[in-house]
C-alpha cells in the first residue's frame, strides 16, 4: 500500500496537469461499472471514490484547504442549488399548509431526538445542538441528483423536493441561532450575534431576489433565445456565489432563493438546457468526489456507534412524521412512508454549512470531525435509500 501511494504521488508530482482529467475519468468509470453491477446511485460511487483516493487514505486527491477548490465547490453548489430552487413552487406551499406544517414538525422532532441521542453519547451540549440543527436538513444535492437520474415524478418526488428546501432553510436558521448562542457565551452579546445571523440570512435571500429581478429586467430588454439562457444563468450564479463569499453571506441561501425567484418570474430555460445538461453531470462528479477528501478513516471508525444511532433516530422520526402528515393530506400511507425514507440523505450540505459558517476560535473542530465521520455513512447510504423509495413508489422512469 505504501509503495502504491508513493508511486502514485510521484507520478502526479511529475505530471500535475494530469491529476484532474485522470481522476474525473477514473471516478466516472468507477461509478458506471459500480452502478451497472449493483444498481445503486452513481453519486454513492463518486463519494466512495473520493474517500478512497483522499490524501488520508491512498490517493492523490488534494484536500479542501486549497482556496481554489473551495471556490469551485461553492460554484458547483450554487449551480445545483439554483436548479433545486427552480423546482420549488411557493404557491403550493402557500395553498397547501400541511406541507409547511409537516416540515416544521419533522424538523422540530428531528432536532429534539438528535440532541437527546448526542447527549446520551456524551457529546457536549453545544456540539449536540449543532448536530441537532444540521440533522434537520436533507441534502438538496443528493435529492436533486437522484430525482434527475431516476426521472421520477409523483407525490414522493414533489414532497421530498419541497420538504428538503424547507428543512434546509430551517436548519440554516437554527444553526445560525445556535452559533449566536455560542458567540453569546463567549462575548456576552446574544442579541447582537442573533441579529447578525438573521441579517446574514435575510441579506443572502435579498441578494438572490435582487439578482433574479435584475436578470428578469435584462431579459425583457434583450431578446435572448431560450436556449442561450442557461449560459447567462450560469455566469450570474458564479457571480452571485462570488459576492456572497466576498461579503460573508450564505451562497446556499442566495442560490436557492435565486432559483426559486427565477422560477416564479417564469424565466424559462430551453428543454435541453435544464439541469445545465452535461455540464451539471461533470460538476456532480467533481462535487461528490471532493467533499469526502478531508475525511479520515480513523475518525470515521471512532464515531461509528454515534453515527448509526443518529442515522436510525433521524430516519425513524422523519419517516413517521412525514407518513402521518402525508396521509392526512391525501397521499397513501405507503407513499407517505416512502417520502419520509427518501428524506434520509444529509452530509454534503452539512459539511458545506460547517465549512462556511463556523467562525474561527469557536472550538468546534471536535464536532466537525464527528459530524464528517457520521455524514460519510449517511452519504453512502442516503442516496441508495432515496433511490429505493422512488422505485418502490413507482415514480421512476424505467430505462
Amino acid at each position: 500500500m505504501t509503495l502504491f501511494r508513493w508511486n502514485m504521488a510521484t507520478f502526479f508530482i511529475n505530471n500535475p496537469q494530469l491529476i484532474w482529467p485522470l481522476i474525473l475519468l477514473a471516478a466516472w468509470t468507477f461509478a458506471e461499472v459500480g452502478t451497472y453491477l449493483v444498481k445503486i446511485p452513481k453519486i454513492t460511487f463518486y463519494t466512495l471514490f473520493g474517500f478512497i483516493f483522499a490524501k488520508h487514505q491512498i490517493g492523490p486527491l488534494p484536500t479542501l484547504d486549497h482556496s481554489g477548490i473551495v471556490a469551485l465547490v461553492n460554484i458547483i453548489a450554487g449551480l445545483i442549488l439554483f436548479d433545486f430552487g427552480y423546482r420549488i413552487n411557493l404557491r403550493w406551499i402557500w395553498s397547501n399548509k400541511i406541507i409547511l406544517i409537516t416540515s416544521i414538525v419533522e424538523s422540530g422532532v428531528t432536532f429534539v431526538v438528535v440532541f437527546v441521542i448526542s447527549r446520551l453519547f456524551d457529546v457536549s451540549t453545544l456540539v449536540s445542538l449543532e448536530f441537532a440543527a444540521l440533522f434537520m436538513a436533507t441534502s438538496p444535492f443528493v435529492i436533486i441528483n437522484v430525482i434527475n437520474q431516476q426521472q421520477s415524478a409523483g407525490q414522493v418526488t414533489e414532497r421530498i423536493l419541497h420538504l428538503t428546501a424547507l428543512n434546509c432553510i430551517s436548519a440554516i436558521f437554527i444553526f445560525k441561532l445556535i452559533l449566536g448562542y455560542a458567540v453569546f457565551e463567549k462575548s456576552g452579546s446574544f442579541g447582537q450575534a442573533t441579529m447578525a445571523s438573521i441579517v446574514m440570512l435575510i441579506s443572502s435571500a435579498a441578494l438572490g431576489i435582487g439578482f433574479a429581478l435584475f436578470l428578469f429586467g435584462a431579459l425583457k430588454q434583450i431578446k435572448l433565445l431560450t436556449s442561450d439562457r442557461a449560459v447567462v444563468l450560469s455566469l450570474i450564479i458564479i457571480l452571485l456565489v462570488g459576492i456572497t463569499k466576498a461579503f460573508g453571506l450564505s451562497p446556499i441561501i442566495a442560490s436557492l432563493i435565486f432559483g426559486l425567484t427565477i422560477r416564479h418570474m417564469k424565466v424559462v430555460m430551453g428543454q435541453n438546457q435544464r439541469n445545465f445538461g452535461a455540464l451539471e453531470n461533470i460538476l456532480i462528479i467533481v462535487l461528490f468526489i471532493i467533499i469526502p477528501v478531508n475525511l479520515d478513516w480513523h475518525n470515521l471508525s471512532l464515531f461509528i456507534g454515534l453515527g448509526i444511532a443518529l442515522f436510525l433516530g433521524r430516519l425513524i422520526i422523519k419517516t413517521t412524521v412525514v407518513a402521518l402528515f402525508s396521509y392526512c393530506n391525501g397521499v397513501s400511507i405507503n407513499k407517505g412512508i416512502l417520502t419520509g425514507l427518501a428524506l434520509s440523505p444529509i452530509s454534503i450540505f452539512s459539511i458545506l454549512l460547517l465549512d462556511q459558517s463556523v467562525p474561527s476560535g469557536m472550538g468546534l473542530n471536535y464536532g466537525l470531525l464527528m459530524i464528517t465521520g457520521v455524514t460519510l455513512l449517511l452519504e453512502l447510504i442516503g442516496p441508495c435509500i432515496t433511490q429505493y423509495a422512488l422505485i418502490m413508489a413507482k415514480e421512476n422512469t424505467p430505462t
Partner: protein
Amino acid sequence: MQLGKFKTSTPYTMGVELELQLINLSTFDLSASSPDLIYLLGKNNFPGSVTPEMTESMIEIATDVMPDYEQLSTQLHQIRDKLVEACDKLNIGICGGGTHPFQQWSERKIYNKERYQEASRRYGYLAKQFTVFGQHVHIGCESGDIALYLLHALNRYVPHFIALSASSPYVQGSDTSFNSARLNSVFAFPLSGHAPFILNWEQFDREYFARMHKTGTINSMKDFYWDVRPKPEYGTIELRVCDTPLSVEKAAVLAVYLQALCHYILEEERPKVSEECYMVYNYNRFQACRFGLEGKIVDPVSYQPISIHEDILNMIHKIEPHAAELKSTPAFKLLKKYIIENNDAEHLRAQFAKSDSIEYVINNAIAKFRQ
C-alpha cells in the same frame, strides 16, 4: 362472442368524457401523476367519474347522463373545480388541449392496468404516442338500429367537430401546421377510421362483431378506435373526433351542438345514408384536421365544395329551433362566438407568437382551464 342487446336509453340525453393533461409545474412537461390524483379523488365524493388512461400523464373524467345544456355545463364545472382543488393539493397542473406541445412519447409510462399493458404489448410505441387528449360525446339512442343510422348520418358533420374543437397544433416541440394533429395519432391504429356500413344492429352484432372477435383481433367495442362508434352497454353513439378543448364550457357547447344535430337528423332531415357518403370522408376529415375552420370540404351528396366555417354557420341556422326545443339556446350563442374567435389551436399559436415560449403556451392552457 356477440354483443347482445343494445341497451335502450332516453333519446338525446348526453354524456361527456374528457381526457386531460397532467403537467409538472416546474418544467411544464407532462407529469406521470395520475395514480396520485386518482387516489386522492377516490377519497372524496366526485361528481361524475374519473378513470386512468393509457399513460400515467393522463386522466379521463366523465359526466353522468345529462338531459340538457345547463345541467351538463353545471356538472362539468363542478368536476373542473374538484380537479383543480385536488391538483392544487398535489402540485400538479391540469389542462385541456389535444396534444402536449413538447412531450416525448418515449418518456411516457403505461398505466399499471392489464388492458393498457396489453395494448402496449400489442401496439408497441403506438400505445405511448397515444398520449393525446380527446373529448368523447355520447348521445342516447332508443335502439341499436337508430344508433347505427345516426352514426352513419353524422359522417357528413364529423369535420365540424374536428374543426371546432381543434387544439393540437404542436407535437414533440414543433408546429405541425395542422389544427388537430391529435387525430393523426389515432389514425395510426389499425382499427381506426369509420365504422363498417351496416344499418341493422342484429346484423352488426352477428356478422361483424362476432366474426371480428373470432379472428382474435378484438375483445370488446373498446378495441375499435372509430370516429363514431356505437356503445351498446350505454345505449349511445359516441363521437370521438374532438380534441379536448381548453375550457369545460367549450366542451359542453360542443356536446350540445351534437345533441341538436342528432335531434335535427332524426326528427326533421332523415337523410338517406349510403356507403357512397364515405367517398369524400377521409378528404373532408383531413381538411378539418389540417386547416380547421378554414378547411374546404366536399358535400358527399351534391359534390359542392364549401368552407367548414360557412357550413357550420348554415347548420346552426337550420338547427336553432331544435336547440331551443332542447333548451340549448345559450350554448348556441357561445358556439357562434367560438366560430368568430376561431378554434383553440389558433389561440395556442397566438400565445406562442406573443411569448416565443412553448412553456408559456402550456401555462396559458392551465390558466384557461381554471377560468
